[in-house]
């Protein structure tokens, strides 16, 4: 049965710099990089060396602990550098692109058996787009998930609009869905935005459960949707992927190519003309930045959104799962008696600054902490922004003291760091909630599997 879920809790952060719904054309980027750090807990084993020629779809490295999971080059070109960090950890594999992309060819049949489909996805390097909950890691190909979830909308600040991005791609999307349906004996849940009139690409999709979710952020997060539609108990596994990755799967099965073309929104208050770009996963953002223009001052470039994204440099590359780049000002300035000021320019969930008088105002937030870390004092804040039947502060505390029993009882399997990102945002005591939850999940995973 399709569900209609209305969430009351949550928080939309109105930021300046929403992308206009137009595409800007830019020359294809020359520099690409694949970052093993985008994949949580991955230990990569390199297949290529510096100087090797690769095609789009050539395996660059694989998972040391599961050799079936391979990671491919997004374009054809030459491996220029393998960047290593502390303890020789591989941080980045850099590729200089050819002027024309040549592809490895994969011959795949969408009508094939489940095993053959999985093998095709694994061999081509498309598999890592499919992830699992709990733990938010790449799906284990040996599992049979109880359901697969696709959230067709993103409620995060300034997130790209998938209705716009996937406009007119009905057929391709349906091809991808047919492949995905093979991966589970359970249902494929396609969750659409109940606040708006979602695109026909999603509502006319066949063979899936279409659920309507409405509410503020994090209503668009898969974790929240899973909690309300088919919650995870200990031992359950569900898989999930993003709408644009469904298209990647479709292209693999129709054209036999590893084609990770992607539409990316360049957003944020520091971007002069925020808009959408057609590019490729892993491409350097420098072309986008130079085509557009970025306001002066010290800026932070984020691959992803302001709550969960990763900081990159001005010529850094788009993350594997990201379809948004955000540029906001750094906040490395002291503010005189800022905590006493009326604060008309300050955004707060509480009404302790007078900015609550203008609820529709769009804010230009910077990266300042707006305070210092303290012990927990205020209670009941996290509950307002986590639309789940979970006690978030108690769960965070259980993670801090590494009490695995308490974590399990309080629902650690149901949350991800990203679902708790707003808790981190609103925290008066400035706790690093996302990393605490992530470490809690890692601990549970290590001890219980």
């Amino acid at each position, binding site marked *: 049965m399709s569900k209609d879920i209305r969430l009351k809790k949550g928080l939309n952060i109105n930021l300046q710099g929403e992308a206009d719904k137009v595409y800007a054309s830019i020359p294809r980027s020359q520099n690409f990089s694949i970052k093993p750090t985008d994949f949580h807990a991955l230990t990569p084993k390199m297949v290529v060396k510096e100087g090797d020629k690769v095609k789009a779809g050539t395996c660059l490295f694989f998972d040391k602990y599961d050799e079936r999971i391979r990671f491919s080059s997004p374009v054809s070109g030459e491996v220029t550098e393998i960047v290593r960090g502390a303890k020789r950890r591989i941080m980045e594999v850099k590729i200089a692109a050819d002027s024309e992309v040549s592809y490895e060819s994969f011959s795949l049949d969408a009508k094939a058996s489940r095993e053959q489909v999985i093998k095709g996805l694994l061999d081509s390097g498309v598999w890592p787009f499919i992830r699992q909950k709990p733990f938010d890691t790449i799906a284990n190909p040996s599992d049979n998930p109880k359901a697969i979830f696709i959230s067709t909308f993103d409620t995060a600040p300034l997130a790209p609009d998938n209705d716009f991005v996937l406009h007119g791609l009905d057929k391709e999307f349906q091809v991808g869905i047919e492949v995905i349906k093979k991966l589970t004996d359970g249902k494929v849940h396609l969750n659409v935005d109940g606040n708006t009139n979602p695109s026909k690409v999603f509502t006319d999709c066949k063979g899936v459960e279409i659920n309507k979710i409405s509410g503020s952020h994090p209503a668009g997060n898969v974790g929240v949707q899973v909690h309300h539609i088919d919650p995870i108990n200990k031992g359950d596994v569900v898989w999930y992927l993003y709408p644009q990755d469904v298209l990647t799967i479709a292209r693999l099965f129709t054209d036999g190519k590893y084609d990770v073309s992607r539409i990316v929104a360049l957003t944020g208050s520091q971007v002069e003309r925020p808009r959408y770009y057609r590019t490729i996963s892993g491409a350097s953002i420098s072309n986008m930045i130079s085509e557009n223009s970025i306001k002066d001052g010290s800026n932070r470039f984020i691959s992803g959104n*302001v709550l969960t994204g990763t900081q990159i440099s001005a010529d850094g590359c788009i993350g594997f799962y990201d379809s948004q780049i955000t540029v906001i000002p750094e*906040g490395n*300035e002291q503010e005189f008696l800022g905590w006493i000021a009326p604060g008309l320019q300050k955004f707060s969930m509480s009404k*302790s600054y007078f900015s609550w008088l203008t609820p529709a105002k769009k804010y230009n937030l*910077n990266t*300042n902490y707006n*305070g210092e870390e303290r*012990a927990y004092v*205020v209670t009941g804040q996290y509950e307002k922004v986590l639309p789940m039947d979970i006690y978030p502060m108690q769960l965070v505390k259980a993670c801090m003291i590494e009490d695995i029993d308490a974590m399990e009882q309080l629902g650690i399997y149901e949350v991800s760091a990203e679902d708790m990102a707003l808790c981190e*945002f609103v925290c008066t005591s400035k706790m690093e909630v996302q990393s605490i939850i992530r470490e809690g999940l890692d601990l549970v995973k290590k001890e219980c599997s």
Partner: protein
Amino acid sequence: MKLFKNLLGSVKPHFEKGGKLEKLYPAYDAFETFLFVPDHTTHKGAHVRDAIDLKRTMFMVIVALIPCLLFGMWNVGYQYHLAIGETATLVENFIFGFWKFLPLIIVSYAVGLAVEFAFAIYRGHSVNEGYLVTGLLIPLTMPIDVPLWMLAISVIFAVVIGKEVFGGTGMNILNPALTARAFLFFAYPIYMSGDKVWVHNAMVDGHSGSTILGELAASANWQSLSFNPFDMMMGTIPGSVGETSFIAIMIGALILIATGIGSWRIILSTFVGGFVMATLFNMWGANELMATPAEIHLIIGSFAFGAVFMATDPVTGSQTNRGKYIYGFLIGVFAIVIRVFNPAYPEGMMLAILLMNIFAPLVDHFVIQGNIKRRLKRANA
């Protein structure tokens, strides 16, 4: 502003690692962050953060306390002039009260912050803002003539035994401001109860400043009291400095609830609990306190002040939303029960809140167990 920045910049090297006063860094840090919101930027997790921090939170509570503070100062002067039979203008009353009350505030903050700074330096962590509010709450719950040395001792007791032994702000079990009051009440009862302490110089001059609760406990009928319900609402009655005016307290409550700093759940359920219990006692009606109408019970004594400013302390109260209803309700119930059954000291709010501080974790435990059971049931279904 530039001046402060330069000044701080010039002394900073002494406090940093390797400087002469390295050990005093927490004290320096407290001053610097008091003047300037620090330039720290996010490095992991969310890149932007809500504008609120603990300083702002505490500051809003102080703002909410201002109506009580101003009214209390005026009332000190008003009650004194009333007792000695003189008439004074509004301004004269206020100025009189201001000069009587100021030393209490100064002693409370000076002593309390000294202890806080000492602990922060000793432990090498930054100074928490918790005492900004506690330091004002303590004098507001005191009689105006409390000797300053007694106030100082109770502040030290509250901060050290009530808070720091548990690990400081955020870790304490009992409300520090009430700990101070309870300490004074049991250690120096003559100065904290009876009918001779609530008006300035009553002890010396010998005029009575009996409180409503005192009269009721002495078996006066509530209708024959020397004050009518209007006085009780306005607060033109003897009592602890901050607690007499129901109107001023409610303005504070509105500020706390509107800004989202104070829990409306606790405030509401405390009043409901008190009302329900007082109504039950009305039916019984065995003594004058029992017979006093429920709505009168809620506006006299320190019931309202406790419900709005003490019970809502998030650290010592219940932390779950459902628990907050139970916690507040039981505070209201126990406050009236203690009032009615304890003729020696009819004010039960302080003890009711301290009692429920102890039980708040238990209340939360049962609320959370409910959530855990729901999850287990789902798994087994």
